[in-house]
């Protein structure tokens, strides 16, 4: 499973776009990149997953360059309720073997009014 590195914390203001970059230099060929969001005293919540290029859903976009050594989670027009810890994970394809998840310390995003 890929070891990931991401900033410890980020600050933003309501209405801004937030980009959180994650480094995963040793990502394996079959590894996907997955992001989770966690609010205090709650379990992590799956946000988005991708393998390469760009993936977009109703919550966020995920950009993965061709070399796949990094990825960027993009949150459009954040609100106060987006204040949370965001985890970047690299791991096996969820469509097959259900491997365990390896979490780092994540990025604590603080959104201010």
């Amino acid at each position, binding site marked *: 499973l890929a070891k990931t590195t991401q900033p410890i914390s980020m600050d933003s203001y309501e209405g801004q776009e937030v980009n959180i970059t994650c480094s995963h230099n040793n990502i394996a060929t079959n590894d996907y990149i997955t992001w989770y969001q966690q609010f205090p005293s709650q*379990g*992590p*919540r799956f946000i988005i997953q991708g393998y390469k290029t760009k993936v977009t859903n109703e919550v966020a976009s995920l950009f993965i360059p061709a070399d796949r050594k990094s990825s960027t989670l993009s949150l459009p027009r954040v609100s106060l309720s987006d204040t949370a810890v965001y985890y970047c994970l690299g791991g096996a394809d969820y469509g097959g073997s*259900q491997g*365990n998840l390896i979490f780092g*310390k994540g990025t604590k995003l603080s959104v201010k009014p």
Partner: protein
Amino acid sequence: DAGVTQSPTHLIKTRGQQVTLRCSPKSGHDTVSWYQQALGQGPQFIFQYYEEEERQRGNFPDRFSGHQFPNYSSELNVNALLLGDSALYLCASSTRTGVIGYTFGSGTRLTVV
């Protein structure tokens, strides 16, 4: 559609005691994983159960044990509690047939005094 349900939500135990935590997976999910999350850290994988057997295990001592029942629900048991076992214990459910992402419960906050 109920998500992952964990009980109890909070628990206080004394050093040396034993504790049992319970988890009901999301409807349609057959795999249950347990994670320990210390304050300020990311969740750490304890073990995973599928078909009532432990399939994978993280770096946790034998004091941590578990069980999965025929209805896919699961228990986490911790014996001889230490102060360092104080943490948020998270249960995550998934399937082995292609669902992207795990669904986490809100956790059990265990305090050992």
